[in-house]
């Protein structure tokens, strides 16, 4: 068996609908995910993240290209891939007329997991997702966030070698999101590989070993979040509301990010000089670390929330 959990080569997907022009959702995506890694696909709505995940998880046929999971060809022998994987679908919901406890347990049983193991894993997953107080209420009576936690608990409890998570924390409150992140970290230390899509930059940064920035069906950049942040050209960002008039002068300190305010990316050694200029010009300056947001903006040219 290969040490690679997933390998995609030049994966393309073109959606064709009668009476409408074809839409190229993936335009030759290549990617390798190693066993035990947590990898995030980061991109705006419609970038192609879900399409990639659906192909990788055997739910969608690619137009061309190859994709393998643990050395098995996803296109040719999907039935040999499915026992290794589990998926949280985008906007997926549990059965409304099951309780979270029933949902997790019956799902594990349907995957062929023994009664004893299924029972133990169900209780563990409910505990970790903070669902114990609602575990015996029908899902129809739960909030959106609680239902999403039920979905994540269901898939986490499988402990499948490769987990595909499409926007797994959507609709969750910050505490629940952190609980989910902790659980994913625990799972990957036990050997599971995780491929998730998200448009939460903090989630991508906190959870993933590596990131792929996807736009218009292409991988624009990949690497660790530190790699991506370094590629911006500095490690500090200085926001200068009202600094537009002196943009040319500030531009000499580093790259400028267009936006509501003038923002300059600088190396720490040039910060003092820039602050002197700001003080002399009576311009307020706020200094902070460069985040993935700046990296994303530089790579894609637009904010992740922009449609």
């Amino acid at each position: 068996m290969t040490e690679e959990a997933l390998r995609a080569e030049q994966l393309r997907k073109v959606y064709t609908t009668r009476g409408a022009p074809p839409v190229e959702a993936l335009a030759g995506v290549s990617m390798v995910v190693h066993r035990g890694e947590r990898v995030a696909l980061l991109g705006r709505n419609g970038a192609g993240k879900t399409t990639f995940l659906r192909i990788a998880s055997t739910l969608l046929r690619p137009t061309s290209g190859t994709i393998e999971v643990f050395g098995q060809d996803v296109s040719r022998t999907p039935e040999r891939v499915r026992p290794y994987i589990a998926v949280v679908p985008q906007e997926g919901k549990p059965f409304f007329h099951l309780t979270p406890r029933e949902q997790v347990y019956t799902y594990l049983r349907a995957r062929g997991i023994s009664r004893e193991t299924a029972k133990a894993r169900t209780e563990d997953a409910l505990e970790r997702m903070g669902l114990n107080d609602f575990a015996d209420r029908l899902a129809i009576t739960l909030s959106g966030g609680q239902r999403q936690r039920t979905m994540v608990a269901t898939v986490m409890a499988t402990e499948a070698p490769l987990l595909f998570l499409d926007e797994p924390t959507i609709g969750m409150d910050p505490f629940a999101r952190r609980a989910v992140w902790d659980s994913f970290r625990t799972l990957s230390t036990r050997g599971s590989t995780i491929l998730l899509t998200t448009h939460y930059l903090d989630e991508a940064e906190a959870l993933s070993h590596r990131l792929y920035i996807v736009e218009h069906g292409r991988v624009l950049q990949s690497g660790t979040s530190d790699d991506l942040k370094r590629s911006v050209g500095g490690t500090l960002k200085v926001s200068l509301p009202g600094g537009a008039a002196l943009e040319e002068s500030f531009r000499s300190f580093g790259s400028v990010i267009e936006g509501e305010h003038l923002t300059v990316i600088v190396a720490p050694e040039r910060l003092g000089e820039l602050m002197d200029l700001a003080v002399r010009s009576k311009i307020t300056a706020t200094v902070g670390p460069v985040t993935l947001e700046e990296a994303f903006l530089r790579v894609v040219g637009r904010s992740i929330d922009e449609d």
Partner: protein
Amino acid sequence: MKIEPVPVLSPFRGFSAFLWTEVLVQAHENLAMATSMVVQGVLLVFVWILDPALIGVALVGAILFSMFAMGQRVLNEAAYVRIDHKANDLYLAGPLSPEAYFLGMSAGILVVYIAPVVILWVLAIEVVHFSVAVGLLLLALSACVWLFAASVGYVFSTFFRDNRAIWAYSSLFFNVFGVLPPVFYPFGKFPEALRPVVLLMPPSAAAAIVQQAIGATTLTSGQLLLASAGLAVETVAIFVFAIYWARRTVREN
């Protein structure tokens, strides 16, 4: 984590567990179990008012119609789970086989909705006084009608992208095939020229065969052959197609 090679896979792996899942889902909707008998109940009252002598035929027809109507539940459930919940992705991108998903869902619905049908059986036995052989024949025909309807329901469920469209079409389909033809009333009352057509529709074909067995209708040997062969061939053909289609539609194009 050690990744073991996938062993030889059974085509129905996960069937009983998914059946149990569906039983739990359906059993939590106990009001739906009661309302599943509304159409049959209303039609039985109509028949009773119009001609009480035909109530035996109507009771047997109600049993067959109930089995046929389970196909509508399969259609609605499969479409709802796929379109509204996307839970089919959760189950099918895993070791559960597509065949087990289709059959588990259908059989789960059968297990729950068979309870009110048992009442119809008790009434039919009381009113018609049929023999064990006729009872077994009715059981076999019910099974055929259920398998046909569940298969049609599952296949049709994959054609829709919007649940609102399904509500209209599914009730139309199941009422046209289950209420209009001679299921609740004797085959002999149906216009002669159209009789071959209804003998090719599984619910009315099954009803005609049972009506013949209880002496409520007289079929020619050609009609009996058409009804029996048509029902058998259609049931097997649509079931085989549904299995193929269940496998085919796991992955979208």
